Structures are given as structure tokens and as C-alpha cells.
């Protein structure tokens, strides 16, 4: 695309905070000396191939695709936790060098430190990003985000005393407290029961409208993607997973799950996604036989 020529001006950088150009990720196989001698060397595994994606400012983007297609790998590359084998990733027009506080991450399994209380878990993020901030300010900031995610009263609890839904609220508060421009969520509600899940989806929508972030969320759920996203990125199965198509979800906000199917495009979008996912899943199963 022509975006790279615009990166020198200030404005386009803020309107297109995430740009992926021809990103490829290969996990190296066993190629060392001993493995070659023992004839057990393996080829590298091509996880992602030719990924081009531009994400506009303050949009909510979902990535959906069959299991093992490299969605998490893609998110880790944007997070800076994993480097692409080739291709480039730009965050605000700057090529990515590693993880940074401009991106907050919500993990599927919460990744809360068990030895820290709820507020210590959140304060760990503040303290890491702003080591010189006075303690009283840190505490105020932490309290603000505890209120935002509705965890008042649980500040001094440890993660093992919380339910899954509460843990993910802490995970969300920890990601948001550093005020990142981009929020990355890796199947944030995947491990939750259906009721907690829908409740947290509504919470995410509310918080997203209050805080205005660019969000990239990985999901397995078609309904979840349709409820929350502005755009849905559909990926093909791995290896060498690519982006098949990007769907726009034009429903007005705030959205309510019980009215969602009233919108004109709902059923056609859902059918298109279902068709794609079923087809990919079938191909994955067949390739295993």
C-alpha cells in the first residue's frame, strides 16, 4: 500500500496506528549439527505468510480463524513479544523494536501474578512504566481503574480468591492503566462461562467507548466478533496462514446483543463467517487424516 510514503507526516500516523506489511513468520525447525547427523532435522514451520493489514485509529478489530492458524502469533508480533521473520510492522509510523507501553495486552489465561494483590498487580504495570511517579499518584491511578472495571472492594484480594471473570477484569485494568493507545486481547473471554462472558463483553464495549482505544481482539466466537467489532479479519488455516477477507460491521453503537439480529447485514455477515470457518475447520480435519 502507499501508506509508507505518508509516515513522515504527523497525521497519518495517528489515524493508522497499526500497519503490517507483508509479514511472514517462520518458526525454525531442528537444523543443528547433531540433528542433521541423526537425520531428524525438520523444516521450519511457516506460521504466517504475506500478512498485510492496516488498522485505523479507535477501531475495534477482531481476528477470527480456525484453531492453530497463527492468530496468537500475529498478536504477539504486534505486541512486540515475537519478531516477524520478514516484512515490517509499524506502530504509529515507527517500525516495531519490541514491546512497549503504547500497547496493552490482555491475556487469555489472565496472567496475573499470584503473589500480588489485585491492586499490586495493577500497580506493577504503573510502576514499571512510570517508575518516578509518586506512590500516592500511582495508588490513585490504580484505584481509578479498579473502579472502571468494577472491582471496588477486591483491592486486597489475591488472584486465587477471585473468579475467572474477576481475574480478567484485573487483567483488563492492568492493560488499561498504562493508558495504551492500542489494546491487544488474545481470546480474553475464552476461558469464561457463557454468562460471565456476555457480561464482560458488555463491559468491554462500555469501557472501549469511555476510553477510546484501538483494539485488536482474537476470538473464536462469531457472535462476539459481530457484537464488538468494527472490522473482522478472517484468517485461513495454517500453515502459512493468510488474511482471507476483512468484513466491515456497520452496526450503530451502543449495540445490544438481543437486538443485534435486527440489523440488516447481521445474517449475511454471520453466514459468510460461518461458511468460511466451517470450510477451514473441515479442511484442517481432513489434512490430519
Amino acid at each position: 500500500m502507499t501508506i509508507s510514503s505518508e509516515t513522515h507526516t504527523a497525521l497519518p500516523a495517528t489515524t493508522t496506528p497499526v500497519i503490517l506489511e507483508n509479514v511472514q513468520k517462520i518458526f525454525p525447525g531442528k537444523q543443528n549439527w547433531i540433528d542433521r547427523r541423526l537425520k531428524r532435522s525438520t523444516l521450519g514451520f511457516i506460521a504466517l505468510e504475506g500478512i498485510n493489514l492496516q488498522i485505523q485509529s479507535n477501531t475495534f478489530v477482531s481476528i477470527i480463524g480456525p484453531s492453530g492458524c497463527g492468530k496468537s502469533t500475529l498478536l504477539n508480533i504486534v505486541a512486540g513479544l515475537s519478531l516477524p521473520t520478514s516484512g515490517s510492522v509499524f506502530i504509529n509510523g515507527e517500525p516495531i523494536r519490541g514491546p512497549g507501553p503504547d500497547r496493552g495486552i490482555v491475556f487469555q489465561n489472565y496472567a496475573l501474578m499470584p503473589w500480588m494483590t489485585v491492586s499490586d498487580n495493577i500497580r506493577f504495570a504503573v510502576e514499571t512504566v512510570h517508575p518516578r511517579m509518586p506512590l500516592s499518584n500511582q495508588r490513585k491511578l490504580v484505584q481509578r481503574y479498579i473502579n472502571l472495571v468494577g472491582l471496588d472492594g477486591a483491592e486486597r484480594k489475591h488472584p486465587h480468591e477471585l473468579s475467572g471473570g474477576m481475574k480478567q477484569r484485573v487483567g483488563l485494568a492492568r492493560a488499561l492503566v498504562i493508558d495504551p493507545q492500542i489494546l491487544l486481547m488474545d481470546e480474553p473471554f475464552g476461558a469464561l462461562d457463557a454468562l460471565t462472558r456476555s457480561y464482560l463483553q458488555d463491559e468491554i464495549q462500555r469501557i472501549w467507548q469511555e476510553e477510546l482505544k484501538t483494539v485488536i481482539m482474537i476470538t473464536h466466537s462469531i457472535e462476539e466478533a459481530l457484537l464488538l467489532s468494527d472490522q473482522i479479519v478472517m484468517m485461513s488455516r495454517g500453515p502459512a496462514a493468510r488474511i482471507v477477507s476483512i468484513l466491515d460491521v456497520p452496526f450503530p453503537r451502543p449495540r445490544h446483543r438481543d437486538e443485534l439480529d435486527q440489523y440488516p447485514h447481521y445474517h449475511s455477515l454471520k453466514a459468510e463467517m460461518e461458511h468460511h470457518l466451517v470450510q477451514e475447520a473441515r479442511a484442517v480435519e481432513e489434512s490430519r487424516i
Partner: protein
Amino acid sequence: MAVSSKSNLSSESVSWYQDQNLQATLIFITSLVVILGIWELGARLGFFAELMPTASATLVALWGWISNPFYDYGPNDKGIGWQLVVSLRRVILGFTISSLIAIPLGVYIGLSKVLSKAIDPYVQLLKPVSPLAWLPLGLGLLKNSEATALFVIAITSLWPTLINTKFGVSNVDPNYLDVARSLGASRWRIVWKVVLPSAAPNIIAGLRISIGIAWLVIVAAEMLIGGTGIGYFVWNEWNNLSITSIITAIVVVGMVGIVLDRFFAFWQDLVSFGRKV
């Protein structure tokens, strides 16, 4: 049954004899009485060796030692309390030396896969060596019995802490590391704030095994080194042919071992926060 209580939804009513803790306690007490009874009878009827004292005489001696632990009638006649103090001091010193080596080394090794593999042969080779094998080496090199005791305790109690620390450090949940890395935490901060607290239950599990080994080793070491201490006490009482005193020492050593173990178990609970080790 005569117990006709109103059906209570909040607490299932269980007859007193179904309480498992009570059952276990009863079995323990009964078996203890049976063992002491066989011992008493056997000793009185001369079933055992000549030296074997009766259970009652042993209990009287045990009470004699425990009721007056801190007397001092010269180098060969000290209360069992003094012996324990001397032994505990040695164990704690030797254990501290070993922990001060094992924990930092374990952390350092655990952070690097290459170092882990490189150090592993030493650990595997030296870990199973009996404490008694180290004793002559210590005496020969250090030429000092006190230093040798500490050396033997330190070198035998080193391995569990080292191995557990290494294991805990190299098995930190990668998600915790991702959290810290994604926030841009320095390596130093990651080690202090994430790796060490995450490995703490493993480290303390290692310390718990180590203190057990240190306490196990002290008796053997002191028997050979002499002076004071519970190990020398056992040897001295053997020379006096006082079997009651030896049995007393065995019981007391066991009880101190329980206290040491409980202390570390408590500490382990304190840093686990719901995690299982």
C-alpha cells in the same frame, strides 16, 4: 439410633465415631500402647538382647532428660538442651552457608538453559554422595573439626535447594514474563519482581528438604567429630551403654526435625498463594 437430631441442611450430622481425625488419633494411640506393651513385656520376659531396657525405664529416663534439659556437670555430662543448642547452631550455620551459595547460584543457573545443562553433571555426580564420605576430606583439607562439621552440613544440604531453585526459576510461567516484558520491565526488575516471587514456593520447598538433610547429617558428623552436640551425646551414651539415653536422643532428634520441617512448611504456605508445589 438414639441420636435423632432434626435434619439440618447447613451441616451434615455425622456420628462422633465417623470423624476421620478422631479415628486416626485413636488408631495412633492404640498402636502406641500396643507397641509399648510388647516392648515392656518382651524386655521383662527377656525376649530381647540383654541391653534392651524396659519401656517404662525408657520413659522415666526420657522424662528425666526432658524435665532438666539445661544442666552442666562438665564436658561429658551436659543436659540434652545444651547438646541440642550446640547441634542446632551448627546446623543453622552450615545450612545458612549452603543456602547463601545455593539460592543465588540456582537463580543464576536457572536463568540460562546453557548453564543449566553445563552445571548438571556436577550436581548429578555430587548429590548422591553420602555425608560420611565428605568427612575425611573436610578434616584433611580444613584441619579443624568444627569447620569440617559445617562443611559437611553445607555440602550435603546444598543440592536440594540448588535443584529446586533452578527448577523454580527456569519454570516461571512464560505469561508472567510476557506481562513484564510487554510493559518494558528491565531484566533486573523481572528477576526481582517476577522470577523470584514466582520461584519462591520451589525455593522454600528446596530449603525444607535441605534443612531436613542438614539435621539428618548432624548426628553422624558429630559422632565422628566429637565435642558436644546431640550426635556426640549419642556416641557418649553408647560408650556408657545407656540405651535409654540413646532412645531419648532419637525421640528428641525426631521432634526437633518435625519442628524444623513445620517451620518451613508454614513459610512455604505463606508464599504459595493458592499454588501447589
